[in-house]
């Protein structure tokens, strides 16, 4: 069955360092991979999308890579700040139907001052 795995353990990073989160998947050929941020008690908020034919995407301090051979995406936050503390979810989607979007369970990131 289709499966997405994210770092199950929480990630604790010193402020100013680069945080790297991993998303691995199996039994899926996604056209797109998305990253969302979720704060406690709130709904996820879209951050970035990367397409299957793209290797890397950047937005301000965020960088996403997508390796369809390894079936893996890495999500980097450079110069991390305490305000970046949240849970980050990755999601895969295909072009066929929006109902086929699947989400990972998320990685909780804590940035300590």
């Amino acid at each position, binding site marked *: 069955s289709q499966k*997405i795995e994210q770092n199950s353990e929480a990630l604790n990073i010193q402020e100013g360092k680069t945080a790297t989160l991993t998303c691995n998947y199996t039994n899926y050929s996604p*056209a*797109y991979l*998305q990253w*969302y941020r979720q704060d406690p*008690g*709130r*709904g*996820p*908020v*879209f951050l970035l*999308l990367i397409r299957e034919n793209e290797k890397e995407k950047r937005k301000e301090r965020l960088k996403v890579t997508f390796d369809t051979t390894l079936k893996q995406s890495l999500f980097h936050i450079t110069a991390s700040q305490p305000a970046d503390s949240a849970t980050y*979810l990755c*999601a895969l*989607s*295909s*072009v066929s*139907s*929006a*109902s*086929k*979007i699947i*989400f*990972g*369970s*998320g990685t909780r990131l804590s940035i300590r001052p």
Partner: protein
Amino acid sequence: DVKVTQSSRYLVKRTGEKVFLECVQDMDHENMFWYRQDPGLGLRLIYFSYDVKMKEKGDIPEGYSVSREKKERFSLILESASTNQTSMYLCASSSSVEKLFFGSGTQLSVL
């Protein structure tokens, strides 16, 4: 910005009650979704709607039904609430497969 509004942030119901969760979006999106989110299990799709009166079952539709009579509104119905339906319920909308807009969620407790 797109706004997806869920009618309640917190809801407490009793076992056997009929529960309605309402969701409204303001961007004329065709697609609307209901997910539930439980610790360690991620978001699981309950139902998806791609147009008015059109719906598809998601991964866990048992015990739920939905209604989409108007494009902007998507309702989730728990016909007879049970304790295992205690969860965070998230509504989302989209115009494509590329980006979902989520509401703030409804934390439902069934006692």
